[in-house]
């Protein structure tokens, strides 16, 4: 063998020689190696700078708004009449509308989402799972404007058929439809969390004589709780930020009420309405847009921070 190699080496250059030749020949490679990381950093920085830019703009305009309207009036006012002779800028009706629509949405999405996840991860056969999961993902891909029209032209009339006292625009219908929209998100994230619970844990419980239901609810769900709660919080955050459905189906009356059969406005819908052309730049109503947007931003930020905290806190280590 050794002899054969020697003969070979005389005929053609050794592999090491070829590698060395290639290395000397191309200085370009080493330049690319140095440039690429810098380039990648700049690209990654785009999103960071954008965020900083948005927060900066929001902050500047919000400060301008609070120079005209006292902070207390804004956060404790129950009346929002931006266009009246004596305009009032209480944000509570909007916060109320946002919270109520989110609660309705979560009442739909929470239970249905988690039950779907339980079915998919614990009970469905591989075949069923492979068909159902993509279908869920299609549901997640429907544009929200379609959901909005669905709420306005289908769900609301349906509700009014049963309860005629319900107004033509109300918070109930978009809340329910928003829930349907969030189901795939909760189902899919919770299912991921449950599927990643090691099988050894299920086996441990089964070997103690536990039924499948006991394994699911007393081992798998507790072990996946951090992921499940995180999916809930992300769902809430999605509901708070949802715009089109509530804009279309809940009208624009700025009632401060807890009656879900009435029209209410959410923070997002207010922004749509006002930025739709009624606000001349530099007017108080124009600046109110930023104050509301800032409030909304803080809301979703808090939700996302909560999601991170919760998923760390409730993690059952395994």
């Amino acid at each position, binding site marked *: 063998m050794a002899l054969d190699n020697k003969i070979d080496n005389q005929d053609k250059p050794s592999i090491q020689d070829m590698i060395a030749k290639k290395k000397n020949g191309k200085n370009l490679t080493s330049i690319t190696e140095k440039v690429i990381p810098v380039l990648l950093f700049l690209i990654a920085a785009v999103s960071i700078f954008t965020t900083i830019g948005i927060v900066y703009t929001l902050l500047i305009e919000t400060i301008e708004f609070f120079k005209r309207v006292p902070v207390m009036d804004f956060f404790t006012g129950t009346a929002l009449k931006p266009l009246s002779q004596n305009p009032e800028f209480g944000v509570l009706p909007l916060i109320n509308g946002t919270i109520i629509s989110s609660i309705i949405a979560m009442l739909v999405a929470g239970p249905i989402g988690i039950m779907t996840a339980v079915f998919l991860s614990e009970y469905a056969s591989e075949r069923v799972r492979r068909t159902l999961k993509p279908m869920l993902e299609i549901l997640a891909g429907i544009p929200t404007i379609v959901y909005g029209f669905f709420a306005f032209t289908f769900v609301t009339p349906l509700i009014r058929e049963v309860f005629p006292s319900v107004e033509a625009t109300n918070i109930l219908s978009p809340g329910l439809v928003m829930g349907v929209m969030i189901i795939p998100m909760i189902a899919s994230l919770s299912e991921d969390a449950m599927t990643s619970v*090691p099988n*050894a*844990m299920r*086996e*441990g*419980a*089964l*070997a*103690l*004589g*536990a*039924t499948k239901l*006991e394994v699911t609810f*007393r*081992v798998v769900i*507790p*072990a996946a709780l951090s992921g499940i709660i995180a999916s809930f919080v992300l769902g809430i955050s999605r509901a708070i930020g949802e715009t089109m459905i509530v804009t279309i189906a809940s009208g624009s009356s700025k009632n401060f009420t807890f009656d879900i059969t009435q029209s209410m406005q959410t923070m997002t819908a207010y922004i749509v309405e006002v930025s739709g052309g009624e606000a001349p730049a530099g007017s108080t109503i124009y600046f109110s847009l930023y104050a509301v947007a800032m409030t909304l931003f803080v809301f979703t930020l808090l939700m996302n921070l909560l999601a991170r905290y919760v998923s760390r806190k409730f993690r*059952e*280590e*395994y």
Partner: protein
Amino acid sequence: MATLTKPNIKVKRQVISEEEATSEVAATTKQNVHKKTVYDTKDLNLWYGDTHALKDINLSIYEKEVTAIIGPSGCGKSTYLKTLNRMVELVPSVKTSGVITYKDKSILDKSFKVEDLRTKVGMVFQKPNPFPKSIYENIAYGPKIHGIRNKKILDEIVEKSLRGASIWDEVKDRLKENAYGLSGGQQQRICIARCLAIEPDVILMDEPTSALDPKSTLRVEELIQELKKDYSIVIVTHNMQQAARISDRTAFFLNGEVVEYDETDKIFTNPSDNRTEDYISGRFG
């Protein structure tokens, strides 16, 4: 340990091989009448899809003994163990034929409630698999799902089980802590305690020490010797010395068949099949 097990073995001697001296056969079979079986396996065959994993298994497992199952990887020893509490059914494509009776009840019948069987037959796995809960909750899980809710009774069960698994002294001050904070050997004893908490008749152990260091292994082996007084134990092991040290009876599996099943002393000193001898002397496997 040897002095402790030796006299017992003489009493329990059971004859399977026909090569045994006839006079001895008469004597031993007579003595064996008193030894009750917990499991009787008759003509058990098992397939994973098209793979014939267990072939015509005939085995009896005796009460309050340690039965070791040895054999090379893929010989079907773990599969057989999992058939005893029907955990093998978790594999979707599994098919069985033949009969296994547990205390005269045919357990492979679909009408037999598998939860009842597993309440009587505990299992300890190869890799420690405590639940991601506190030590206390790990032990109390079994009693709780079987309807025991009284806090005082649960406290007693937890202490008794942890003592039974000789880990009480190490964990009594940290019962509320997550079981995953313990070492591998401690986790395995927690799993044994979890199994003891519902007071089963049989404990199945699937290579319980293969993920443990030598010191922890020794502790678990000592524990098995202790548990033998109250429980019938079936243990699958890769470690032949372990089988020789702790078991009363040993079955040697090869390619899905039982090559030889006899008391441990006989298997390790005077096996009747050449393949057994080759395996225990390290010629293959």
